[in-house]
């Protein structure tokens, strides 16, 4: 039932991975040093967008609170640094666990609602987290918290910064991409999309619908938390603005223009969004309105997301 992917479709991910892996090595000679950080940031945004694409695109749950989980991940790193902890791996792991716990608590309540109500309640929870972060004086409150030294990667890799951090982020993004592709054709992936398409029937078929949605919600939260932890290391800074609801909305736009429920949706959306904002900022301070026009254009040209251009040509999914 699954068409065998064409040769190009199999080569493209590896070619892209290779190009991205080599980029920091060739960037200095091309005078593109600045863009190593830009791509690193883009990869982290891709990880965050992937978590939203998973929960919304595959799971059909319109969550507008992913930024809250990003913030929980970032502030977990902050809390550990404040406590004198320096291991990057440990901090990232902790961010995943802590965010998963937050997602479990929030999911247990939110998943009793659907549609617009679910959207509103996830939004409300993330705004609560935002205001919590603003009020936490020990971690800088409104001003945010700067990480003075990079976390330690150990194993002779030095600090989590520069090219090394770039490669770690790339590895995480690539593994996540591969994992999601596998998950999409696994039992869990089919069950999740079944719930998205016809929840009542899935219940009547004997699926533990709530438990499946709950699991997916926690997984998506944990991935967003990891993105937040990486983002804190990338900026060496965490602030409440990371978890403002407009950040959740930006992720939503990225996933929608990229392609909801499509494997290239998150990477493509993040790449296009970040490139557009970067390029437009070069030309004008008033970059929002041309960006808006371009987004409208994209939505008209690719109503199912740009990823739909590449897969299943002529096929209506």
């Amino acid at each position, binding site marked *: *039932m*699954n068409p065998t992917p064409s040769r190009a479709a199999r080569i493209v991910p590896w070619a892209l991975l290779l190009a991205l892996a080599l980029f920091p090595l060739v960037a200095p000679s091309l005078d593109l040093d600045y863009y190593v950080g830009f791509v690193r940031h883009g990869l982290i945004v891709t990880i965050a967008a992937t978590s939203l694409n998973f929960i919304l695109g595959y799971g059909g749950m319109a969550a507008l609170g992913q930024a809250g989980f990003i913030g929980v991940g970032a502030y977990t790193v902050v809390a550990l640094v404040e406590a004198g902890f320096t291991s990057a791996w440990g901090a990232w792991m902790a961010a995943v666990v802590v965010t998963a716990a937050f997602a479990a608590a929030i999911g247990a309540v939110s998943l009793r609602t659907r549609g617009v109500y679910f959207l509103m309640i996830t939004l409300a929870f993330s705004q609560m987290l935002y205001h919590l972060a603003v009020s936490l004086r020990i971690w800088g409150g409104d001003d945010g918290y700067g990480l003075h030294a990079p976390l330690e990667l150990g194993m002779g890799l030095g600090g989590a910064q520069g090219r090394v951090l770039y490669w770690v982020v790339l590895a995480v993004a690539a593994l996540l991409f591969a994992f999601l592709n*596998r*998950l999409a*054709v*696994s*039992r*869990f*992936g*089919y*069950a999740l999309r*079944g719930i998205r*398409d*016809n929840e*009542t*029937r*899935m*219940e*009547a*078929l*004997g*699926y*533990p*619908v709530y438990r*499946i949605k709950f*699991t997916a919600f926690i997984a998506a939260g944990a991935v967003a938390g990891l993105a937040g932890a990486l983002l804190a290391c990338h900026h060496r800074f965490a602030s409440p603005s990371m978890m403002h609801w407009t950040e959740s909305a930006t992720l939503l736009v990225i996933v929608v223009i990229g392609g909801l429920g499509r494997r290239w949706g998150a990477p493509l959306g993040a790449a296009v969004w970040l490139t557009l904002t970067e390029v437009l900022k070069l030309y004008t301070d008033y970059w929002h309105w041309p960006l808006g026009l371009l987004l409208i254009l994209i939505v008209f040209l690719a109503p199912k997301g740009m990823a739909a251009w590449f897969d299943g040509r002529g096929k209506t*999914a």
Partner: protein
Amino acid sequence: MSLFVAENLFKHFGGLVAVDHVSLAVEPGETHALIGPNGAGKTTLLNLISGLLPLDAGRLALDGVDLTALPPHRRVRHGLSRCFQITSVFANDPVFDNLLLAAQARAGSSFHCLRRRAAESALRDRALALARKVGLDEVLDRTAGALPHGDQRKLDVALALAAQPKLLLLDEPLAGMGPEDSAQMVALIQRLRAETAILLIEHDMDAVFQLADRISVLDYGRLLASGDVAYIRDHPEVQAVYLGTEAAA
């Protein structure tokens, strides 16, 4: 002992009593038809039994297991499976994927996320067997939503059969069907009687008299009468509220 027992089922929506203390039993191997005019509460009753609607009062048991407090998916585990009056399939997916999804619900955990489902030959075999059983094995690759109405109804039945039910709930399986499709569906239900007890809601009285061992009549949420075909056919009250109007129409 009855296979399935429903005792004093009660459900109201605001001031409207939709199901008014209905008691019902289905014997092993029996096909039990539930008839009644539109709005009598038949589908509501089915939703209460399958658990898609919460009961206000009453008790349900299947094969000695009390189902009353169980969520719908746990009732399916215990052998209660249903079809839908308005065809409920996964319209965007191929027929075979629909069947795989149904087979997967019954066979082991659905939390595997690393193994490709396509590699599970046991699951494919089960899906194929289901397709053969309802006569859809020629259209496995067709998108479910693009199938003719009769075939979609068959698929709906096949999805319910994947659970290997002890009691199968059919909600108007003949609704909207032409004579040819109806005949096929009746033949299919005849075959299914050998493997499961059936609780059947149906308006087509010819089919009901053909298929049912016992008939219960529902009117305004209350159980009017219950008995074998001959008893119901000759029941004066039933004739007045239901069969009479059908004959007149």
